[in-house]
């Protein structure tokens, strides 16, 4: 795999993920929808699986998480921006761990049962582990002190909150895998301008919206 092509892929998919977290996530929260579950169970899962499908490069999703998390830091207007950035990065790492043993051609996931099951596992664990990581790291990074008993008492709610995400994942993964049937090859001369343009657009919109609303 050409390294330049891969880096461009990391930047564009990470930026799209971060853009959706900031812009779409804000919109979902404003209308009172469970944006955390939707962002992880639909958007994060789609971008992570799509990038794995297109580039077949384990490790790439961690890079995407850092790009998306970096973009999230620029918009502190919903929730805790530090928590969100940490959670996104943790989600990418958890995804890599879960998908470590999945074949790069997705031959393990031929049946709809396997696809939905993998969607449930991925969405649930990514969401739960992201939440737990946030609960641990945010007070440490923020200098407010981490207390294990606070996390233990809150664990049932974290575990419960992952159910909706898991159910969304059960639908999202099979739908995303249908993209394999489409021919989405981009000509080389268009690849870099397209990825660069899309990446810049995501960052400009996110930073611009931050400046406008501040």
């Amino acid at each position, binding site marked *: 795999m050409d390294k330049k092509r891969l880096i461009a892929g990391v930047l564009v998919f990470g930026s799209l993920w971060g853009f959706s977290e900031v812009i779409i996530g804000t919109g979902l929260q404003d209308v009172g929808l469970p944006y955390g579950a939707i962002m992880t169970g639909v958007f994060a899962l789609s971008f992570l699986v799509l990038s794995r499908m297109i580039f077949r490069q384990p490790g790439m999703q961690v890079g995407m998480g850092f790009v998306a998390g970096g973009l999230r830091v620029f918009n502190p207007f919903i929730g805790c921006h530090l928590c969100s950035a940490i959670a996104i990065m943790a989600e990418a790492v958890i995804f890599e761990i879960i998908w470590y*043993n999945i074949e790069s051609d997705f031959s393990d996931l031929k049946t709809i049962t396997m696809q939905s099951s993998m969607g*449930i*596992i991925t969405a*649930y664990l990514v969401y739960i582990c992201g939440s737990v990581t946030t609960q641990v790291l945010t007070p440490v990074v923020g200098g407010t002190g981490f*207390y294990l*008993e606070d996390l233990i*008492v809150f664990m049932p709610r974290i*575990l*419960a909150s992952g159910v909706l995400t898991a159910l969304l994942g059960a639908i999202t993964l099979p739908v995303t895998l249908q993209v394999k049937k489409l021919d989405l090859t981009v000509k080389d001369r268009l690849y870099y301008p397209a990825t660069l343009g899309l990446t810049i657009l995501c960052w400009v919109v996110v930073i611009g919206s931050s400046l406008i609303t501040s």
Partner: protein
Amino acid sequence: MGKEKIIPVLAMVLLFIGIVSALYVNATQVDKSTITIQGQEYTFDELLVLGGEKTIKTVDGEVSGVSLEGLMKNIGISCTQCSKYTIKGADGYQKTVDWNILKTGVLTEENRVFFPDTPKELWVRYVVEIEVK
């Protein structure tokens, strides 16, 4: 056991854990309008009289409410500076802070605590108890 068996079973197990947790959370949800401090129940108005009103600046703008510093000093805690304070929400969410953080915060009429210059994760909603340790 191959992947074709492990993956669906694991998915079912995770869903089961999530659903049981949801039932547990629902069963243990606390529903009350007063706040417990040192074993004593207080309404918001009583806390306001005890602590006095204070306005702080947060990343979300100015917030007014009961001064947690004034409240703890007037409620009869022997050593405010050497105590830890666990702020508990009705939904099971809780956060423990030390005096240096607590004294900067306020409790609003919506029973939510706010602190300036801290991550929002400390802003516990629907506060039902402040435990002093």
